[in-house]
């Protein structure tokens, strides 16, 4: 059987599943359009959707809700894809986009700007520029950690050693962040803590453009690596035995994860659990661990999950929005537990 015929069989077998998987993010996105502290009627929203809306409804939906929904879609799918890559490389069901210490690196960058320099530069000149310095600091921090990991990865052969080193780097960086937190004042601490809670609503304009660019590039890169990822599923020795350049693949996949998770963290703050849960959900729904199937499914489960999280975050109403990072944890943890109980253990899914 030729490769394309096999692919046809795999895709063709589950039209209903694929249909519902495609519908899910659309459904949540549509529901999310209603979620907000200002109530609009079904008609008002539909009018805006079809470009006929005017006045406040159009303004709020177009300028506040569209960017938020698009951000949730991009961030959710990117975190999920990077989680899938990490779980595949490390052959560890609990690996996620942040296992390399990328989010810890981003936090350190932000913490240095918010907490570390407050004595040296005036507070007003810092916050004057809004979110941009924080995004830049997060990118710098994440890149630094990623470079460190890549340097080590070039020397270390064993993948488990890399995993442990990644976790160690992450812990060391978190320790530095704690020191900075300890010595910072209340206002700055609050700014930092709010950053760590994540947010989908303030990414607009060119920032959203940048996020879209990075996440699309990262996702395409992952799609280009399906063959290599599938080989890695069988173990590194297998991938090596079929003549794949292991280190180069590893470096490329780390870079992809760095771009995906790093850009999301830079613009939205750290958002947990989506990256761990979404790939498992995709494998479970599709009943296979074939990356060719699981990768597109992961894009859909990841974006659905974060859209659902955003929907839940807006549930309280009255102008109250729950921090997205707390919502994804509350959403993700029961899902993981349910999957473990359902399948006895997660690695059976891999």
């Amino acid at each position, binding site marked *: 059987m030729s490769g394309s015929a096999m692919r046809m069989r795999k895709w063709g077998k589950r039209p209903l599943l694929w249909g519902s998987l495609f519908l899910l993010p659309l459904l949540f996105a549509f529901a999310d359009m209603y979620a*907000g*502290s*200002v109530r609009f009627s079904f008609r008002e929203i539909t009018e805006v959707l079809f470009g006929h809306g005017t006045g*406040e409804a159009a*303004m*709020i939906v177009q*300028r*506040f*809700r569209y960017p938020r929904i698009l951000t949730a879609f991009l961030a959710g799918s990117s975190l999920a894809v990077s989680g899938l890559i990490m779980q595949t490389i490390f052959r560890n069901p609990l690996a996620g986009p942040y296992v390399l210490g990328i989010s810890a690196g981003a936090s350190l960058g932000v913490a240095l700007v918010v907490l570390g320099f407050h*004595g040296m530069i*005036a*507070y*007003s000149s*810092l*916050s*004057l*520029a*809004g*979110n*941009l310095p924080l995004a830049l600091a997060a990118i710098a921090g994440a890149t630094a950690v990623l470079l460190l990991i890549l340097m080590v990865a070039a020397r270390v052969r064993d993948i488990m050693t890399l995993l442990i080193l990644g976790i160690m780097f992450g812990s060391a960086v978190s320790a530095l962040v704690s020191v900075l937190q*300890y*010595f910072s*004042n*209340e206002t700055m601490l609050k*700014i930092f803590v*709010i*950053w760590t809670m994540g*947010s*989908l*609503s*303030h990414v*607009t*304009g060119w920032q959203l453009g940048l996020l879209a660019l990075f996440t699309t590039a990262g996702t395409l890169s992952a799609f280009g690596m399906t063959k290599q990822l599938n080989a890695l599923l069988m173990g590194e020795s297998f991938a090596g035995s079929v003549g794949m350049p292991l280190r180069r693949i590893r470096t490329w996949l780390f870079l992809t994860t760095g771009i995906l998770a790093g850009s999301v963290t830079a613009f939205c703050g750290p958002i947990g659990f989506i990256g761990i849960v979404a790939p498992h959900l995709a494998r479970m729904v599709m009943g296979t661990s074939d990356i060719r199937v699981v990768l597109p499914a992961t894009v859909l489960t990841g974006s659905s999950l974060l859209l659902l999280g955003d929907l839940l975050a*807006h549930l309280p109403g009255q*102008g*109250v*929005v729950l921090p997205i990072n707390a919502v994804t944890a509350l959403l993700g943890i029961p899902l993981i537990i349910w999957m473990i109980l359902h399948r006895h253990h997660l690695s059976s899914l891999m």
Partner: protein
Amino acid sequence: MSSFFSRILPFAVFLAGVTFSCSAPEKKDTSGEEWFSLENRYAEGFRIDTAEGLWRTTVLHPWQGKDQKVFSYFLAKGRERAAADAPLLRIPVQRVIVTSTTHVAFLKVLGKSNTIAGISGTDFVYDPEVRARIAAGKIKEIGHDESMDYELILHLQPDVIFLYGIGPSTLEQVTRLTRLGIPAVVVGDYLEHTPLGRAEWLRFFGAFFDEEPSARHYLDSLAERYEGHCLPDTLSSRPLILTGLPWNETWYVPGGRSLTATLIHDAGGRYVWEDLPTADAYPMDIEKVFHRGGHADIWINCGSATSLRGILRVDDRLALFRPFREKRIYNNDRRMSPGGGNDYWEGGVVHPDMLLDDLRQIFHPVTMPAGRSLVYYRQIE
């Protein structure tokens, strides 16, 4: 568990007795003194009682939240004996440490800035005189919250340290300082709902310097000016006023019973969130703020944004707000020190009449003398 309590309880009771005796509004103390209350005019967070040569200052609301404590301090001039077993502070105090720029302002009015030996947050002080003393090394930075330098505090040997209550965690600081033999007084001036109530804490500080009567005198003339300048409640044409700046998607708005809300009302404005039944800052979704305040007439107190471009950098959607389009945004940052200290939060505390005049001039320019320039506010460009 029970042995844990039996060990902790006597200690807790002891601490409660020593450092913060609960004060019921009784007239007679255990020691037999007849106590008279010096009535407050506006403030709700403290009370001052006096007996023969003794004062008792009581802080009723030291911090935000439900978990409140009542702190009492006994002050004596000369060699009066202690009432009950509570610690006694000899007044007037000669050397103090303060932990908020509002404390600096109160001491300034009392003419006691020169008693300050240490400050938490020296960078944020505006007063040039105090800044000069900081630069000359006569006033030390004592650190803040968790990283307070207790060795330095001991070394400075203050007669009293004024703490500002952030929450039950302040209790730990009080306990620690009391163990070191340094009387720690928790101040809750920032929790007052009215500008005059906040200014009245001057009397509380005055008591420690044996200057309560002159503080009362200052407050009386301040109140006369403030109340004389308030626009009547019946005023019909009130501009809609938006305040603050969002952080990420969250816009912390002062509640309808906050001091900011009171000031806006007294200056003849209608606050966007006047119906929010709280005094605390409330995290509001930016979308909701746009819904309620997008069509506001004037926008004040936009925090760290110092220009129209700065506001856009925080969130480009702020350009959709009417005050932005009409460039009617006023920030309270006209008087800033090089280190980032803002006199609005310092001198403004003891000059609420000037805050009121500034806001009146912004909301209703015709009601103010022509040619008056704003003191604490400036228009953002």
